[in-house]
Each structure stands twice: as C-alpha cells, then as structure tokens.
C-alpha cells in the first residue's frame, strides 16, 4: 500500500481572495492533462532496470 504524503493547504492571512481565478484553474486543468499524458508515456523513458540504474548512479563529490 502506498503511503500518502500530505501537503497541507495553507491558509493565508495575507491573501483574502482564496478563490481560484478562472485563468488559474484553466491552467491547472491543462497541467493535469499534460501530467497524465506524461505519466502514460513515462515507462518508455524510465530506465529499464530502475534498481540497477539507481544503484550505479554514483558521483564523485564536487564543490
């Protein structure tokens, strides 16, 4: 079972207008659609053996 990371929606003293503007929600829907498309394609991009890939990604320390 995957654990669910909570990102609390902060409340704002500063920002009285918390309603989403139409432009923002439109952009939100667009981003959601783009993300879904990318998630559909992502397995083509994902390293075929993720475990080996992550293990072998070792870098020398730099600055």
């Amino acid at each position, binding site marked *: *079972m*995957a*654990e669910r*990371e*909570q*990102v*609390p*929606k*902060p409340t*704002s003293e*500063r*920002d009285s207008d*918390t309603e989403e503007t139409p432009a*923002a929600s439109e*952009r*939100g829907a*667009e*981003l959601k659609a*783009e*993300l*879904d498309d*990318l*998630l559909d394609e*992502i397995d083509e*991009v*994902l*390293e075929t053996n*993720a*475990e080996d*890939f*992550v293990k*072998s*990604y*070792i*870098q*020398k*320390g*730099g*600055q």
Partner: protein
Amino acid sequence: MAIAKTLGIETEYGIVHRGTDEPNPITASSLLINAFLASEGYRPDTRSDVIAWDFIDEHPDIDARGFSPMGAMAPEVETHLVNAVLRNGARYYVDHAHPEMSTPECADPLSVVRYDRAGELIIQRSMAAANDLLPAGQELVLYKNNSDGKGNSYGTHENYLVSRDTPFGEIVRHCTAHFITRQIFTGAGKVGAELPGQRTDEVHYQLTQRADFFEEEVGLETTLKRPIINTRDEPHADARKYRRLHVIVGDANPSQVATFLKVGTTALVLALVEDGAIPTEFLFKAPVTSLRHVSHDLSLREALPLADGSTVTALEVQWELFDLARKHAEDHGFEALGGAWVPEVLRRWELVLTGLERDPMELADQLDWVAKYRLLDGYRERHGLSWSDARVRALDIQYTDMRPERGLAWRVGLEQLIDDDDAAAAIGVPPSDTRAYFRGRCVRDFPDAVVAANWDSIVFDVGGEALRRVPMMEPMRGTEAHVGTLFDESDSAAELLRRLGN
C-alpha cells in the same frame, strides 16, 4: 545607491559513462568538452588544445572575513585539466571530476537564464559530439542535479558583484536569512534525505538537493563542511571597489522561473543590504538546522526559532524581504535596486509567494520541487509505490537527464522565459552589456592571437617579443557600447590593441 549587479552561475553536472566497465569521470568530462570544442571549430593549438584559462589571478584561498581560521581548507585550483573559454564568454572546464559550465557575466537575471539555458544546450551538443567518438554501445549521459542520492554532492554556485563598502557582516546576517528561506522556491526537489545518521526513508521528499550537505554557518570551504555563507573573497575585479559574493547553497534548476527568482531575489536582497534598507533582523538560532528543516517541510509552515526566542516561517521571511524590496523600489525607483529588470522580479516573486501560500501545487509549471513532486507522486499513485521504490528514485534522477528525449524536467510543462532559438543564439554570442562581450568577441574574432583568458584579463600574442595582457578589472566595461565599433573596425588583434591604446 546599490551598485549594478554583475551576475553569473557555475554548474557542475553529474556525468555517467555507460557501456564501460571502468568509467573514469575525469577522462569522460575531458572527452565531453573536447568533443564539443572540436565539433564547433574551436582552434586546435600546439600550446594547448584550445584557448586556455589563465590562472594567474585565481586566489580561492582569500577569505572575505580578512583572516583564515585554523584548519580551514582552501580549494585547490586544478590547472592541468581541460579549461576552455567560449565565444559567448563562458568558461567550460573539468572541475572535481565533473564538467562545469560557468555562464559569462550577465547584467540582469533574465540574461542569466538565457546563458544558463545556452549552457544546457552546449551540454546536449557535447553529449552528441562525444557519443559520435565513443565505440558503439558506449554513451556519456549528463545530469543537471546536485546529488547522487548516496551522500555525494556537486555544486551550482551563484555569483554577485557587491560593493566593497558593504560590511561583510551585514551580508552574512541578511543573506543567511534569505538563503534559509528562499529554498521554498529555489529547491529542485529530492527523494529521501542524505544526512549522516538519518535513515533515508524518514524524509520521503524534500524541497532541495543541497540542504543536507551544509554543516557550517560561515566559512571558506566548498567541498567539505560546506557553509551557508561562503567567504571566498576573490572578486575577479578591482578588489578595492568590489566583492564577489560566491553563493554555494543553491540547487541547479531546470526551471527557468526558479533560476530567474533565485538570482533576481538574491540580487535584490544584496541591493537592500548595500543601501542599509533591511531594518528587520532575522537572526536564526540554529541556521544549519533551520536550513534543513525548511527543506524537509513540504507544508512550508514550520516555525523556525530565532535568537531572540520568537519564531518565524520561511514564507514570513520571504514576504518581509519582498515587502522591503517593493517599498525601496517605490521610494527610490527601480534604478536604486538594479534597473529595468527589477519590476519583473518583484512581480514574479509576489506571484510565487502567493501561490506557495495558497497551494504550492498551483506552481507546477513554475518551480522544480513542485513539478517533480507532482510527477513522482502521480507515478507512485498510479502504480501503488512507496517513495523509496527504485522506480521513484530513478525518476528523481531522470528529472535532470540532459538527453533531450529523456529529461523529464523539460517535458513537465515548465514555463520557459527564454525560447530555445534565443538560447541557441547565445551559444556563440556573448552578452552585450558586460565585459564578457570583450572576452567573447576576442575569442570569436581573433582566436589565433588570444593565448589565454580569465575573468579579469586576456593575454594576446600579436607577434611581438612579449605577450600582451589586457586587464578587465571593471565587470561592466568592455561592453558592446564601449568596444563594439572597435572590433568592427579592427582587422587584427594587433590593430585592436593599438586602438585600445594598449
């Protein structure tokens, strides 16, 4: 009034040599850079492969505090590795087993974004050129990140020219508060944590690549015991007039908005410090701990203890700095803070803080840590995976894969401030409004006469008995307005030098 901010970014890229049993990152980095230089027609030379970097003015051991603490380790300058000066005024070299790209000096944050993106395109061209030379089945792959997830970090450093008149202690006080709290928009995101002694699954995801690697508040080191404020006092300019603040605490950002804000807000904070316009003192009780806590706190709500016993959140500090900058601009004009670029930084700063306050996920097309979080969390949900699953960790690394068809950061819909035609043009052309113009045009127009170059001088061989060094101690001189016509009217380096009165 604050001085004009000359700006730049240095990025060490992660490098993997696939298809070989004995990868050597230093050899691979050299191959990468040399392949690029050859493919772009840079001059082969018997003295060195290309126009060499001149180390005569490099003093990374000089400390801005005016003393060297016992046991402090100055970074070594490696002189034997590939080290080239490019036509756009950038420096492209091998440093600590990584290829490193330093942008040319830029006069505003958008120009930094342009040359940072040009640097990414140079990396892509370099990979293509190197892979043409490698045996079938081998490949170099570069990553624009700052950690391998196993405790090894490599840096992305920012540079800001500040007035020598500004007491260094003032810079330390106010910049520490900014660096701890700006992470909420500068972070590039990371799965897990790499703190010594901490189990990596205690932190599922954090805002930054780098916060885990900082152990000191102030110091000279860059590779061990890294400090939040680096004291390297090497201005690469007239040291009587200038300091260079060398900032080592940031992440490499694929997001252009994040890069723009990282550099823009820091330039504004420094201008406020120079003008003595920060009355609020955010003196953190435990800066290193707070740096990590901000990075580990996705709610952005953690109360951070101040020395006076009160607490503050990262967002509150950022709102305060924003308000001070806006007020200073209103009272004294944008020129007082740096010039025509100031309003756009203020506008985006406010938008991002507002979004972070309301719901960070709104900023998925603006900030790296948000874009990466949504991508990885979406993938996790779809496949029912934990944060520590290898596939999620692989995606974290692949977010910054520099292969155009693979790098996820360039496919998640991040807003571009500089389009790729603009950035591609900047591969071969320096900024017009800093001394990088002079350096870049010398490399482009007179490659056979330029023996060596560095940030503040160029050495020519024009056939006489002695080599001729042209100093460039003023970062905002040597611009197109100053010397463009001279280049246009000079047929040779000798003529250029004669007309410069050298």
